[in-house]
């Protein structure tokens, strides 16, 4: 097995994820090819854009089935970022204008809801650096001191997990914001590790060396 597959589902800027993987000393492959994903040692699902469009592209390219096979059945280490994390939920209300929720991959018993901070002075999107409070330890947080758990967030929707044991960390933004979730070989962050300087690079590096 070689290379780190960065799943390409038609979104724009995967460059920084690719650069971060390279910077950590691994070989990134941006791909939606079944063979490349099968060969990869680790799989990353990046995410920028709208939930509905992303799911449409993922289904159209058969990526949902590839991930089901290689990540869920075969247990390949998997990291989903930002919208990528939200796609693991059962549903999302993003742009669900007609009241019909978008359905996600449904790997986690969770729903994606619009951020509703209880303080009207808090701006949406939740944009910038915020601290993550750990619920429990996880290998991707190894060697990162508690005081350094500041990561770069930019999002208007967030995941609400129904199973508390899935949550590794959360941030505070006028409400509890799910920041890291994990189960078995799967981990996901609402923030962008590839944009979070030293702590983010450390997290990515931990993930790339992780063999659950």
């Amino acid at each position, binding site marked *: 097995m070689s290379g780190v597959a960065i799943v390409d589902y038609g979104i*724009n*800027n995967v*460059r*920084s994820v690719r*650069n*971060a993987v*390279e*910077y950590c000393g691994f070989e990134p492959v941006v791909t939606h090819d079944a063979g490349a994903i099968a060969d990869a040692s680790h799989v990353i699902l990046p995410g*920028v*854009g*709208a939930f509905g469009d992303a799911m449409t592209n993922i289904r159209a390219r058969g990526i949902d089935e590839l991930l089901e096979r290689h990540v869920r059945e075969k247990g390949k280490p998997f990291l989903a970022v930002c919208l990528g994390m939200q796609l693991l939920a059962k549903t999302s209300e993003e742009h669900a204008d007609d009241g019909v929720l978008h359905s996600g991959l449904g790997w986690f018993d969770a729903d994606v809801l619009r951020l509703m901070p209880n303080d009207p002075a*808090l*701006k*949406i*999107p*939740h*944009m*910038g*650096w*915020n*601290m993550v409070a750990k619920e429990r330890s996880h290998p991707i947080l190894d060697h990162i*001191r508690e*005081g*350094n758990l*500041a990561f*770069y*967030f*930019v*999002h*208007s929707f967030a995941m609400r997990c129904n199973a508390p044991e899935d949550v590794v960390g959360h941030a*505070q*933004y006028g409400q509890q914001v799910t920041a890291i979730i994990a189960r078995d070989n799967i981990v996901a962050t609402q923030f*962008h590790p*590839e*944009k*979070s*300087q*030293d*702590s*983010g*690079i450390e997290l990515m590096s931990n993930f790339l060396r992780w063999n659950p």
Partner: protein
Amino acid sequence: MLKKRLIPKFLLRDGRLVKYVRFFENERAAGNPVTTAKVYNDYGVDELIVLDIVPSEASRHRVVEIIERMSEEIFMPFTVGGGVKTLDDVNALLRAGADKVSVNSEAVRRPEFLREAARTFGDQCMTVSIDYKKISPNHASVFIDGGREHVALDPIEWARRCEDLHCGEVLLGSIDRDGTMSGYDLEMIHRAANVLSVPLIVSGGCGSLQHAIDALEAGASAVAISSMFLFTDHSPIKLRSHLFSRGLEVRASSSSRN
């Protein structure tokens, strides 16, 4: 809590870092943008703003190349702008590694462009940049085309309109204070922060550690700083430690992070 952001602002002319006073006076060369960005990265700034101030077909390619090089070694958010007029322009900058694209003149000339760009790339990708100048003791007005063209828009009303057009963030800059290091326009910041629901980055006038505190306490989500970092001994590390010790919500300084 969400941290207040410290953001060096880079002005590029033909791919070189430059700095003026009040947009046009005292041009000073300020070095190579990529190496300077690396230094700021080591200082642990929160984000970078890069604006091409004399955009042309040639400079656009150079900016794309600069952003590509920055994003290979620097892992923080970049906002990039200058002469952005089409969805293709936005796309090219995002592909190069920008996280947010700043639109200024074209948003005034064609407000629907902002809405279209936000719909295509997401609200959070679109920063609207607003430059304004006092035109009488009690009135400020928006200027576009790098401060050359006056348009009859009140900066705060225009910022609110941009919010309705789905911009994700507002970068509000005082032309009168640009490069003067005489302090931010606190009254304007206070008014803008009170009415806007998107994050507000303020620009123009920072010359001391206290100026940054004043702007953040007036309600800014982030301070953009150019001259002070380039031409004084107030480094981002020094500013961050100072803000931190004064109890402002900023990330811990890189020295305490390492």
